[in-house]
C-alpha cells in the first residue's frame, strides 16, 4: 500500500538574484512498513523533501500524494489537520515543549486530536514504557539526556498512530551509542507496530540500519534500493 507518492517534485529557493534548486524533479513512492534512509550530503535537499512530504512546505512544481490526497491542493488549516492525524515528526533537536513533562509532551498530540484525558494518559505512559523511559514520565526535557529527549520525540511522533513518521537527522546530535539505541528503537517500532519511517542522514552507520536506502544528491534521487 502506497502511503506517499512524489511525482516530479520541484523546489526552488529564491533569495534576491540567486536561486537555489533544492529539489529538481523528485519521484518517490513510499509504501506502508518502509524503514527508509534518505541519505545524502549536507545541502542535497533532504530536509526540504521531508518538509514537503509532511506538508510543512509546498512544492513549486509536481505533486505529492499522502494517503491519496494531493497536498498542494490543501489549505494551511487542512495541512495542519493532516499533520495532526497522518504525520509524525522527529527533528534533529529541540523537539519537545520545554514547559511540559515527558508524559505531557506525548499527551499533547492526543489532546490536539481530541482524545479523552484518561485514554491519553494511559497511552502516553504505555508508549513511554515502550521507548524505555519507564519512571521518567514526570521529567521536563531539560532534565533528560539528549538520547532520552529523542526517545520522547519518537514516542510522541508515533503515539497518534500516523501513517508515516518523518525523522530529519534524528541522531545527528547524539553520540554514536545513543544514536544506535535510537535507531534500534525505531527499528523495533517499525517491526512491532508497523510504523512507517523515513529518516534522513549523512552517516554511513545510520544507513546500515535501513531496509531501504534512497540516495539524494543536488535535489535528485540518484539511487533507491531495498536490502
Amino acid at each position: 500500500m502506497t502511503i506517499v507518492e512524489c511525482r516530479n517534485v520541484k523546489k526552488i529557493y529564491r533569495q534576491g538574484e540567486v536561486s537555489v534548486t533544492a529539489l529538481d524533479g523528485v519521484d518517490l513512492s513510499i509504501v506502508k512498513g518502509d524503514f527508509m534512509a534518505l541519505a545524502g550530503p549536507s545541502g542535497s535537499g533532504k530536509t526540504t523533501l521531508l518538509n514537503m512530504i509532511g506538508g510543512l512546505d509546498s512544492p513549486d512544481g509536481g505533486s505529492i500524494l499522502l494517503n491519496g490526497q494531493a497536498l498542494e491542493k490543501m489549505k494551511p488549516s487542512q495541512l495542519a489537520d493532516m499533520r495532526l492525524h497522518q504525520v509524525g515528526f522527529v527533528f534533529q533537536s529541540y523537539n519537545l515543549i520545554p514547559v511540559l513533562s515527558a508524559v505531557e509532551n506525548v499527551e499533547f498530540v492526543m489532546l490536539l486530536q481530541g482524545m479523552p484525558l484518561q485514554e491519553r494518559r494511559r497511552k502516553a505512559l504505555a508508549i513511554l514504557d515502550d521507548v524505555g523511559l519507564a519512571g521518567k514520565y514526570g521529567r521536563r526535557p531539560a532534565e533528560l539526556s539528549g538520547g532520552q529527549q529523542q526517545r520522547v520525540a519518537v514516542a510522541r511522533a508515533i503515539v497518534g498512530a500516523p501513517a508515516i513518521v518523518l525523522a530529519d537527522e534524528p541522531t545527528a546530535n547524539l553520540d554514536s551509542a545513543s544514536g544506535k539505541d535510537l535507531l534500534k528503537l525505531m527499528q523495533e517500532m517499525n517491526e512491532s507496530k508497523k510504523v512507517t519511517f523515513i529518516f534522513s542522514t549523512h552517516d554511513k552507520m545510520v544507513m546500515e540500519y535501513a531496509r531501504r536506502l534512497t540516495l539524494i544528491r543536488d535535489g535528485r534521487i540518484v539511487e533507491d534500493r531495498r536490502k
Partner: protein
Amino acid sequence: MNFIMAWRNIWRHPRRSILTIAAIVFATMLLVFMLSWQFGAYDTMIDATVKIHTGHIQIQAQGYQDQRDMRKVVPDPNEIERILTSLRGVKSYTFRAEDFSLVSSENRTYGVLVIGIDPQKEPSVSTLEDMIRRGRFLEAGDRRSALAGEILADNLNSPVGGDLVLLGQGRDGSIAATVLTIKGIFNTGQDEFDRTMIHIPLEYFQELYNMRGAVHMAVVLCDSLTAVPAVKERIAGALSGIDSSLAVLDWKELNPGLVQAIQMDLVSGFIFYLILIIVVAFSIMNTFLMAVFERTREFGVMMSMGMGPGRLMGLLLMESLGITLIGVVIGTIAGAAVTWYFQIHGMVIPGAEEVARQFGLPERMFPQLSFLSIAVGAGIVLILTVLSALYPAFKVKGLKPVEALSAV
C-alpha cells in the same frame, strides 16, 4: 492542559513576568486611586457649592437665571411650599429674594447683592449659619438686620453693630431705602461671596422692596445628589398643572462654572491616564513580542505536530490574559486598599489650598471609593493590555511552519 501550559509559560521567565505584572499592578492601582480621588473631589466640590449657596434645585421664574430681573418673581411661595412639603426626596427647602443695591457706611459705598433669607429655614438648606465668624445669625422677628460678608464688612469698615444705609429699587420701581444694623459677619471661604453679599430677613426684604408676598426662588436640598434628577422631574410635574411661568433648575444649571471645571478636570485626567496606559501597554506588548520571538522554533514544533494557528494564538492569548488578570486583580485590591486608607484619614495636597479656597473646599480631601472608580480603572487597564497582547498573537498566526522551524 492548555491552561497548565499557559501558566507554566508565564513563569518561564519569572523576573520578566513579575516586572510586567508590576507595571500592570501599578497602572491599575494608580487608576483606581486617581479616579476615586477625582470622583471624591467632585462630590466634595459639588456638595460645598450646593450647600454654601445654590442648593440642589431651585424654582425660579422663567428666564430669571439668565437675566436677574427683580420683576421676574415666584409670585406665590405658599403654593410652592404645599408642593415641596409632601414631595418624596426633598430633604429641606427655603425661599429667597434677591436684588442688587447700594450699601454705604460712613464714607464708603459698594454695590452688593442683597439676599432675603428665612432665618428659620435657611440653616436647613445652606451652611451660612455655620459660617458666621462674628456676631450672630438672623433670628425670627429681626427686621432691620443684616449679615455681611467678611471682606465687605472690612471694606465698609463696619463691625458687628455698625449701621449701613441701603438704597435700592423695589419691584414696582419705587425707591427702597433703609438703615440696617450688622448682626453678624460670615466667611464662606469664597471671596466672591464674602465681598459682594449681605443677607437680610426675607419678610423685611419683601416689605422693603415691595414684593407683595413674592420671592425670587425656592431653594431645595435633596436627600442625595443622585436623587436630584428624579426630584427635579417630580417638581416639574407638580408645577406643570399650576404655573407654567416657573422653571426648575438643578445644580448643574445653577453652577455652570462648576460643571465646566469638572469637565476640564476629567479631560486632563483622561489625557494623563491615556499616556500612562499607553506606556504600560507598550511595555507589555514588548514583553509578549519578546516571548513570541524567542519561542518561534517551539511554535514551529507545535505546528509540525498539527497545532493550528488559531489554537496557538489561543494559547498565547491565554498567557497574556493570565498575566493581565494577575496584575489587574492585585492592582485593584491594592489600589482599593490605598484609597480606602485615604478615604478614612484624608489627605492634604500641598499647594492646593488656593484652589480649595476658591471652591470653598476643605483643605483635607477624601477620595471616594466607588464601584465606578474601581470598575473603570480596572476595566481600562484590562482592555488595553489584552489589546496590546493581540498584536504579538496575530504575528504568530501568520507564521509559516518552515519559517518557524528554521528559527533559532
